[in-house]
């Protein structure tokens, strides 16, 4: 089934609700299933073996319901990107193709919209990849993490280096764009093996690479191994060196860094992720997924019947009482899959209100993650120029061409910058 961008819907249909200033939005779907849990993972996902057989189907239905709810409010009238992440969406197999097609029918996808599906080497097959591509998926993001067997074992991944390499090449062969995730600072990882991983990543032909230093999250098996001394604690200095090495190797291969963790060939930057760093509204569907919209869109949703109906909402409901000075709202749905299925069209579980000023500061913080940085006038409107000047003195940010951006040192010490500005 081909997912052709739907005909633009007549806007008048939603005139009563439509928040005039919404503009283009991004759509995210969180698929909370994986084959097995990785040792470092604290994302919301369940190993597939623990999931009841009907749950994926109910989940897909709930996502559709939630999407319809937002579409009815006019929030999905101009969708620039769809990102199906997780978890591991490809655990849904062929069902995934149908779900994506449904979403494309519900939302008003802009012609040429970016549609990304996350996948892992252990759930990827050439057949599934081809079918997804044929049904409109333009981009695959693969959790490779490393091309070194020892790293993969420390990380508790379900695949070896060969499988990862094969999977990436198969995905590249579909003609879709391909992105890889890599991890540095893994206990035991050497600079040489990291370099080899980077080179193998480049050799696959993938046009996008993300580089994350490993963080030890509480209550994960990795945390336990570190606490008991079975594994050494990740060394932040080693990770720093590896991040700089990634910058060099990837730049040489034509993948330019465009964000703290993201590298891409010209034209292959992730449209969806760029949205997060430039203040574009997004709607997240699925357990623990977050959405961010201007307050008008949130008020429209809050006025909807299903947010008010306690039988739809079930547990953990936040009674929506919007502060007068709110300009932007971020909210998150139930983290539990079963709870999400029950409450998909209900009020969110957690809500965060930002004033206009807070929203501007957040735009600066997130914008500074980008290589291009933020426009000087945005910084001025956000009232953070003094902070930036202080940071400039510490050589963490610099000014160029009417914009503020991180320095090479600032790339590694981003938190110092964000703490000053936020």
């Amino acid at each position, binding site marked *: 089934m081909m997912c052709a961008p739907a005909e633009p819907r007549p806007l008048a249909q939603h005139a009563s609700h439509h928040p005039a200033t919404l503009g283009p939005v991004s759509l995210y779907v969180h698929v909370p299933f994986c084959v097995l849990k990785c040792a470092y993972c604290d994302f919301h996902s369940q190993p597939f073996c623990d999931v009841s057989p009907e749950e994926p189907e109910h989940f897909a239905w709930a996502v559709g319901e939630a999407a319809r709810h937002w579409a009815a409010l006019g929030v999905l009238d101009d969708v620039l990107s769809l990102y199906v992440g997780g978890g591991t969406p490809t655990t849904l197999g062929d069902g995934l193709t149908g779900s994506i097609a449904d979403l494309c029918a519900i939302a008003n996808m802009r012609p040429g919209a970016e549609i990304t599906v996350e996948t892992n080497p252990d759930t990827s097959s050439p057949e599934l990849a081809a079918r997804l591509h044929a049904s409109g998926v333009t981009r695959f993001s693969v959790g490779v993490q490393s091309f070194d067997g020892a790293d993969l074992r420390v990380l508790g991944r379900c695949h070896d280096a060969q499988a990862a390499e094969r999977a990436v090449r198969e995905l590249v062969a579909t003609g879709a764009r391909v992105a890889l995730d890599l991890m540095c600072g893994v206990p035991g990882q050497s600079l040489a093996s990291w370099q080899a991983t980077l080179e193998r990543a480049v050799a696959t032909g993938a046009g996008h690479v993300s580089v994350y230093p490993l963080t030890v999250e509480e209550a994960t098996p990795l945390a336990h191994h570190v606490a008991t001394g079975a594994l050494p604690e990740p060394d932040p200095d080693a990770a*720093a060196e590896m991040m700089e090495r990634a910058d060099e190797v990837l730049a040489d291969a034509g993948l330019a860094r465009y964000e703290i963790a993201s590298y891409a060939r010209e034209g292959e930057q992730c449209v969806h992720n760029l949205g*997060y760093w430039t203040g574009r509204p997004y709607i997240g569907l699925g357990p623990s997924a977050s959405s*961010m919209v201007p307050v008008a869109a949130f008020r429209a949703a809050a006025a909807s019947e299903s947010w008010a109906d306690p039988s739809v909402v079930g547990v953990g409901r936040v009674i929506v009482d919007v502060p007068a000075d709110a300009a932007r709202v971020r909210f998150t749905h139930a983290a539990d899959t079963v709870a999400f299925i029950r409450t998909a069209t209900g009020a969110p579980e*957690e809500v965060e209100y930002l004033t206009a000023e807070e929203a501007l500061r957040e735009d600066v913080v997130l914008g500074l*993650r980008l290589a291009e940085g933020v426009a000087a006038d945005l910084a001025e409107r956000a009232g953070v120029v003094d902070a930036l000047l202080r940071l400039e003195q510490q050589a963490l940010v610099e000014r160029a061409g009417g914009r503020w951006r991180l320095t090479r040192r600032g790339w*590694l*010490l981003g*938190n110092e910058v964000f703490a000053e500005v*936020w």
Partner: protein
Amino acid sequence: MSDPTHIRNFSIIAHIDHGKSTLADRILELTHTVADRDMVEQVLDSMDIERERGITIKAQAVRVLYEAADGETYQLNLIDTPGHVDFTYEVSRSLQACEGVILVVDAAQGVEAQTVANAMMAMNADLEIIPLINKIDLPAAEPERVRHEIEEGLAIPADEAVLASGKTGEGVREVLEAVIRRVPHPVGDAAAPLKALIFDSYFDAYRGVVALIRVIDGTVGANMKVRMMATDVVTDVEEVGVRRPANTPVEELTVGEVGYLITGLKDPALVKVGDTVTLARHGATEPLPGYREVKPMVYTGLYPIDGDQYPDLRDALDKLQLNDPALVYDPESSHALGFGFRVGFLGLLHMEVIKERLEREFDLDLLATAPSVEYHVYTTKGEKVIVHSPQDMPEPGHIERVEEPYLKATVLVPPDYVGQVMELAEGRRSTFKDMQYLSATTVEMHYETPLSELIMDFFDQLKSRTRGYASLDYEYIGYRPSNLVKLDILLAGKPVDALSFIVHREKAYARGKVLTEKLREIIPRQMFEVPIQAAIGGKILARETVRAKRKDVLAKCYGGDITRKRKLIEKQKKGKKRMKSVGNVDVPQDAFMAILKVDE
């Protein structure tokens, strides 16, 4: 009911955790002093900090009425006392209000160091001692061995020792009968002018100073005019009463009775513990002996983290000092920490307790510097300088000699651990004096030890090296010359006064090295490299470096992460605020105490 022959005043004394407070609970129950529904464990430990730590810090007086086997009803005034060595003076004060004691000894632990120390105090005060072997319900109880230890080690006849359990209540009636039979009733002259000893006091926000008194001669009641003999103030009595354990007013207190006295005086300094209360007119001419002044043993700098709290800290110290005469303080200032106080304590537990009470009861945020003892420095000009803080140490060139306080330390330990104790003591500049067997299972060892060594986690080390079996008691013996030097700690090249300390010259190198290492672990990485140095008068002994922070960035930041990451950064910011900024180095509070945790 105030016939002195029907009054018995006694304290419950013991080594810590042998069950004094629990026994007091049982006595309160047996005598229906506290209604069943109000009964909690260790009911007399009323401070939050006592309840949390399960220890008694303040002695507590309570009156109970007991119907004895002879059919008569007796008024018992019992005082539950603390067992920790830091609070020995609380015990000694309580004893002066009594004619007898119940000496509680744990049937499994046997005689320990504070058992000996407290028993000695009771003997010196000529009090009747009733030994009670407690916790006989424990499977590990060995009452016969303990009976033997009491007789051999303390020279107290124990054939009549009461076997009891504060848990089951067994033996409680029996010990009260023994109190009635053996503890002498108070004697005094009801017709003589009032003489009452203030053995404790506290501040009540509504009533002012409340004094706890023991009447020796005469009678005191509301509306009388009384005089505090030492401070020579005259005031009206607003109320007298007894503690059951809540304050309960009575018309008067007479010979032998224990109770409280409220005068409306609001100034703590006017109502001194140890003073004698008498009548304003035709009063007594000779005060009671009073108390030997307690002298602080250790001194530490206490600084408000927020400089604006300095006046609040002073008020809080004033209030706490009221019923804690062992607490002394003087203003002090530090380049690194600003304005604070140099505060003297009886020991480290006392220090911890006071700091915690200041923080909780007065809502202060405090930073404490490493404790120091009182050094006597004799200068080349022939002056004697009292030094409570390393900052006050004269220049090395001006020092003729330094003297430091020594203690006689008594350690009680099973014979198997004698070697471990010796090893520890040797490393702490201690001189072995003698040892003797109290019983086949307990050895008493005596050392002469500099106090400054004892306050460096000596007790923790002793406990851990003897698997918890050793107990320690000490008393001050005097000042002795020592080869002491001031060790400076420099952060980023600048000496930090609040981190300097005084140490024996031979240990300076080792301590400096371990301390710089410890500080390297404690001080977080900053945006620039921070050298940490230990030096004596400009000569560097040890150096460590906190490397500059290279990476601190949240690499992953997509939709759902944003809120979480912002919270994380806010948390980091808060953590930074709680640190002290010294120069431009952020120093966590622990750093100022690091020297205590250094065992080379």
